[in-house]
């Protein structure tokens, strides 16, 4: 025990290399810390090319940021918007700051444009009347339009198209929706007695790390504070900033609280600076190796991984506590070593490894990162304790559990637990908990409820939505949309038209408030040709001639445009500007997006996409939630399987009775913690199930020590210290403002508490030794 052996030298060498590597990687290319919550569960669900298009659409949507400058008077709001725009233009990482927009297209200009394509565009009802040769209905409609009190479309199109087919088409498209309220080029919205001027900008989110996001958000905040108008902010940058600020705060608070708890526990239990330094060494090594694994395997690390990662402090400290207690005891018996705890320590470590390996193979990047970080950290902590602690008796603390009255009380209680009677009571409790779970457990894996949106931002977003809703022409689109794929633009328009015909019915049935699709404004060349033929046939009828005579007009043959309207020409028009992001071409494929507004019946919309494999209903949040539900199912099955495998391993290493008792402890703890979580939260989530991985690992850990050593003072003392350190950490996690972390913390907290209480049951077959040292 005086000179370092090969293993210890190897450990030291590996530690030095790992530290240098980590420092080098941090200096060379520091890992990007991601604070975007929408990216936590990102998972590819369609083919790579389509995924690329979806990602591009997502980036386009998310890169657009809005600030509404709200004031009682419009001129004040305009002035303040101009001041803010000046400040933002000087800010790095922000591009395309816009407060003035192209002059809004006039109804007359839109009408003039379509007049170049006579007969090509018909409203749905006009087309139906023509197809059914219900010409009287058309004449009635013509007189209805002509006698309407106000109808600018009649005046704008009548000279080109006395049949008023174009006027009816433009009326159906609610053509004035392309026209917006502007003052000196500024777009503005009105709500009650206030006016809001719109400022638009695009931060380069993909190139920004959390520090830069925070800096830009702070600059915007400062600029807003200097204004008399109120800033209403909408955009990913503000949410990412809030998420990173709160996650960083929690990460710092949880780490400090864990370290403080561990320091106090060491002072209370081991009473030496050396014991403290030894624990600190294990924790530091585990964090270094955990971080190194993350940096090597992931280009981007999510900030939530680091928050969850704080749990590593508590678990790795456990190994140090067990080793220090064993060293102290064995030293008093002659030679300081930890051979006596090799077996339980190894089994405890093994069950943790099984738990975290499951996470590494999950389909979600956040779970992979948490799994890998903890796995690498635990391996390093385990090896440090096994290899380094026996190296010198230096690590031994001044620990003594003799003559401590409180410990005697605990031992007395634990001996009561390690009895057949207690086993029966616990089994009854389990049955009750299982009944509670079976009857009342309600799972919700809605990804939108896993993180908390800043109340201030949520309020501002609601106000912005109110402004937009007030103006029925400018509503905010829902997150869900349709993506249509085709081999050429003509097919694309035909497919989109098929879909919008069905969507139109859903709007009539009030399942949807509205939608925005290109094919309402432009149809394929073939469809335009068909329309022209239908209208031309009508215009040659006697009924139409009589209508013209009543108006004092003579018949003019329907002209045919030299070429039909194509997507590119249409998209170049200013009134089609808002549709430019809804059309994409990639590697010979054509894509169109149909935006949706005010969804009331999600299932109906999903079923429309099922009718064609070239129409995808993109509902990222619902898809992720669905995948999480699926993963939760797999996870529960894998956990059951892992418990069965652990039981089998224990049967081979011990005996059937001992194996069953040890296995019962994690099962009891898990069922109790799930049941309590259900009672507290009402709804269980994937994070409660995920917490069970940790509960199982730690419960096995405690149970193994009681199985190996029995209910003895040393084990009781050490498990108390280690449970306290973990309980403290997870109780704090339970207070997190992020619901996902809070759920996880609560379940682990209750789970560890239950494990600590029921773990002595593993010693049911052992001789009880209340007075043992």
């Amino acid at each position, binding site marked *: 025990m005086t000179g370092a052996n090969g293993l210890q030298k190897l450990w030291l060498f590996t530690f030095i290399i790992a530290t240098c590597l980590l420092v080098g990687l941090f200096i060379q290319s520091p890992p990007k810390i991601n604070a975007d919550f929408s990216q936590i569960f990102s998972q590819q669900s369609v083919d790579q090319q389509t995924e690329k298009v979806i990602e591009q659409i997502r980036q386009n949507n998310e890169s657009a940021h809005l600030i509404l400058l709200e004031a009682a008077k419009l001129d004040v709001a305009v002035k303040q918007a101009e001041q803010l725009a000046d400040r933002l233009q000087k800010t790095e990482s922000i591009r395309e700051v816009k407060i003035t927009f192209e002059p809004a297209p006039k109804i007359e200009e839109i009408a003039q444009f379509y007049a170049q394509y006579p007969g090509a565009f018909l409203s749905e009802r006009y087309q139906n009347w023509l197809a059914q040769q219900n010409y009287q209905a058309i004449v009635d409609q013509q007189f*209805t339009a002509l*006698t309407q*009190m*106000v109808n*600018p479309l*009649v*005046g704008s199109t009548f000279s080109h198209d006395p049949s008023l087919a174009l006027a009816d088409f433009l009326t159906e498209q609610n053509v004035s929706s392309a026209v917006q*309220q502007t003052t000196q080029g500024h777009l503005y919205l009105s709500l009650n007695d206030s006016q809001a001027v719109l400022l638009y900008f695009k931060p380069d989110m993909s190139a920004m790390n959390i520090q830069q996001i925070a800096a830009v958000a702070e600059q915007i905040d400062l600029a807003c504070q200097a204004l008399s108008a109120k800033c209403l902010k909408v955009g990913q940058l503000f949410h990412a900033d809030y998420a990173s600020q709160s996650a960083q705060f929690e990460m710092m608070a949880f780490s400090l609280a864990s370290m403080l708890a561990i320091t106090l526990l060491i002072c209370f239990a081991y009473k030496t600076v050396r014991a403290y330094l030894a624990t600190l060494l294990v924790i530091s090594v585990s964090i270094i190796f955990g971080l190194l694994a993350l940096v090597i395997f992931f280009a981007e690390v999510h900030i939530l991984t680091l928050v969850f990662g704080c749990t590593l402090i508590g678990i790795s400290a456990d190994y140090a506590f067990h080793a220090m207690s064993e060293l102290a005891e064995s030293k008093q018996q002659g030679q300081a070593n930890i051979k006596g705890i090799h077996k339980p320590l190894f089994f405890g470590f093994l069950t943790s490894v099984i738990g975290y390996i499951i996470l590494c193979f999950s389909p979600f990047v956040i779970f992979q990162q948490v799994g890998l970080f903890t796995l690498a950290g635990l391996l390093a902590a385990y090896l440090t304790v096994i290899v380094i602690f026996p190296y010198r008796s230096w690590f031994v603390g001044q620990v003594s559990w003799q003559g401590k009255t409180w410990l005697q009380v605990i031992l007395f209680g634990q001996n009561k637990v390690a009895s057949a009677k207690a086993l029966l009571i616990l089994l009854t409790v389990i049955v009750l908990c299982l009944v509670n779970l079976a009857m009342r457990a309600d799972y919700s894996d809605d990804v939108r409820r896993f993180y908390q949106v800043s109340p201030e931002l949520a309020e501002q977003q609601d106000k912005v939505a109110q402004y937009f809703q007030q103006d029925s022409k400018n509503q905010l689109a829902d997150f869900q949309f349709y993506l249509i794929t085709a081999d050429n633009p003509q097919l694309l328009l035909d497919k989109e038209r098929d879909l919008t015909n069905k969507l139109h019915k859903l709007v009539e049935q009030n399942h949807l408030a509205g939608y925005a699709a290109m094919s309402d404004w432009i149809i394929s060349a073939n469809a335009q040709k068909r329309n022209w033929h239908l209208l031309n046939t009508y215009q040659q009828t006697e009924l139409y001639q009589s209508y013209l005579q009543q*108006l004092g007009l003579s018949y003019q043959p329907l002209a045919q445009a030299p070429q039909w309207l194509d997507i590119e020409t249409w998209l170049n028009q200013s009134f089609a500007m808002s549709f430019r992001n809804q059309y994409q071409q990639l590697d010979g494929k054509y894509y169109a997006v149909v935006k949706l507004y005010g969804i009331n019946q999600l299932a109906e919309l999903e079923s429309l996409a099922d009718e064609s494999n070239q129409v995808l209903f993109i509902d990222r949040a619902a898809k992720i939630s669905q995948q999480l539900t699926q993963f939760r199912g797999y996870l529960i099955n894998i956990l059951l399987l892992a418990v069965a495998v652990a039981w089998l391993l224990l049967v081979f290493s011990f005996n059937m009775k001992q194996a069953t008792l040890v296995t019962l402890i994690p099962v009891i703890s898990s069922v109790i913690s799930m049941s309590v979580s259900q009672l507290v939260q009402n709804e269980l989530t994937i994070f409660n199930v995920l917490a069970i991985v940790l509960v199982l690992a730690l419960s096995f850990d405690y149970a193994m020590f009681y199985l190996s050593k029995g209910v003895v003072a040393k084990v009781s003392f050490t498990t108390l210290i280690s449970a306290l350190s973990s309980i403290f950490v997870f109780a704090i996690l339970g207070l997190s403002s992020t619901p996902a972390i809070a759920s996880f913390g609560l379940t682990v907290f209750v789970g560890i508490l239950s494990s600590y209480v029921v773990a002595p049951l593993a010693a049911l077959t052992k001789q009880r030794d209340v007075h043992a040292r």
Partner: protein
Amino acid sequence: MKHCSQVLVVLFSCLYAIGVLANNSWQPIAKQQLKQYLAPYQNLPVKGTFSQSKKLQFLTVPIRSSGEFSIDKQQAELLWQQHKPVQQQTKITPAGIYQQNPGQSDFVKVVDDTVVSQLLLAVFTGDIAEQDWFLWQHNPAQAHCIKSDILLAELSQFVQSIKLCQQQDLTQIALSEKQVETLIELTEYKE
């Protein structure tokens, strides 16, 4: 002397022409007089018959329509029942313009633009003093009429100006659109 009288004739003619022109031109109504000028148009008939004549730039004959109307000032709703040339009912509310054709059981929204319906409602219900999109003018030569250009750019795409006239039992509302002139005559039902 002959020349002198000629100069005087020309001078008087010019003065008369200026006077006539001045009398015929529309002048903004001063703020303090606005109430007095608008008063007669704030109590338009609430129930009666209408006849409408629409002149389109490219048509030699105006398009005429007629029917009945009723206004519910409390509900801010105008019901326009057209009998000729085609039967149809139009309902104008602050939320938009709705139409019901024969055979249809419900009104269907035909104009989503609330500004148009709000403008028409303001005119028909007499709520024309508060709206800041009006600039009311008077013309001494047409003492029984007032006129306003529409100041709101968004609204002027629909209606450019409005003229209201009231003489004895007849109320006239003239709406000017681009290429379209609409004249509506309202006659109140007598009790």
